[in-house]
């Protein structure tokens, strides 16, 4: 829109063209954690509120007209960028299948105990961590990071667990001997 470049902003203190103003607004809305009020944009960009408001209307209309996957709309007293409702299934599907190398701290701790102490039973993990780990174990089994390694020959014959091949792959290890040891860390302390 080269014509608009020639049209100076006469409202606020800003010296932006209309296109530049819309572009800056787009960036601010994008980085904001919360719906962004017009007055905040006016302050940050040092522009007139009316100029911001009308740029927003245009921007929002452009998103709507472009068959974009995103929309810019006014919500809760501010402006926000979000995905369009027609994509909610795809988005939900995506969020469900996020990369599985992500673990909660509890699961990470449980996995650490299993990695370094395998084969190990649930009571032994409890003994070491001092916390129940049942749900972490389930998570780790679901993510195929651990596998059962038969039963231990003690009272109650508890199931033993060890790390899986997927564990090695996810953590970039050739084999278990590549797990870092105390010695590797002593190098850092000096």
């Amino acid at each position, binding site marked *: 829109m080269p014509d608009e470049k020639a049209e100076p902003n006469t409202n606020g203190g800003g010296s932006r063209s209309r296109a530049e103003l819309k572009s800056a607004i787009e960036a601010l809305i994008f980085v904001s*954690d919360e719906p962004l009020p017009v007055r905040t944009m006016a302050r940050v960009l040092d522009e007139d509120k009316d100029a911001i408001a009308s740029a927003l209307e245009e921007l929002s209309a452009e998103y709507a007209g472009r068959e974009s996957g995103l929309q810019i709309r006014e919500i809760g007293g501010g402006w926000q960028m979000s995905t369009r409702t027609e994509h909610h299934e795809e988005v939900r599907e995506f*969020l469900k299948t996020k990369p599985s190398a*992500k*673990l*909660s701290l509890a699961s990470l701790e449980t*996995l650490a105990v299993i*990695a*370094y102490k395998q084969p190990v039973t649930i009571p032994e993990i409890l003994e070491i961590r001092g916390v129940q780990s049942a749900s972490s174990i389930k998570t780790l089994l679901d993510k195929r990071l651990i596998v059962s390694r038969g039963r231990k020959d003690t009272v109650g014959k508890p199931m033993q667990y060890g790390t899986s091949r997927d564990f090695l792959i996810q953590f970039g290890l050739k084999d278990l001997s590549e797990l870092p040891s105390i010695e590797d860390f002593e190098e850092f302390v000096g």
Partner: protein
Amino acid sequence: MTNPDTKQLEFDFKSVQAEIVRDSADELRLELGEFAGPLDLLLYLIRREEANIFDIPVARITDKYLEYIRMMERLDIAVAGEFLVMAATLIEIKSRMLLPQEPSAEGEEEAEDPRQELVDRLLEHQKFKLAAESLWTKATVEQAVFTRGTIETDDNNPEISATVFDLFEAFQKIMDRHKEQIQMEIHREEMSLAEMIRNLRSKLKIEKKLNLQRLFEQMGSKRELILAFISVLEIVRTESVKLIQTDTFGDITLELAES
């Protein structure tokens, strides 16, 4: 990437350089920075002496280098081992340079310049310093780019992505926790219940009566106190003893019953 504070990096590449700063007439300050090692110092000296890196005047540079080391020592700056190793290397090169070149009697190719290995190292080092600088430029450009703010779906995912070192650290933390526990247990073993009971019995035999208040006050720790209390109960249960309290809330005495 939603938290710019933890994600952005800053480098002050230009501000740290090996240099000697004269603070006042009688004080020299050596600014080498954490990043400066012997190779940096050498490069600095070569540049300052306006020498050619491919034809280092070893004698002069070695003297300067040693001067700096001595100054560091004078200023009580701990001279790291690698600086001393480099000093030794320089002295060695210097002495080899002083040796008369043996005429290549056997007509073999010329003996290698004793400085060659050092020059190679300096060049290699220099290359990586430039590489670091180019990384810095890239990161600076990248810092002008921002990713989106938090959206609702981010909150559904309070997870961290883990590396093998996270795994190790998690394990270390548990082991540290565990070690403390073991130490506590060992401490607890210092006096067992059986020992406590034995002690009390022999005391009672000798003194015939024990003031419980005073006995409990003698206990060094909460754990010993509990042990003492249990021991008293045990003695009351198993021996012919009397617990005597003369007034309400008054001291309680443990007395051996006449048998």
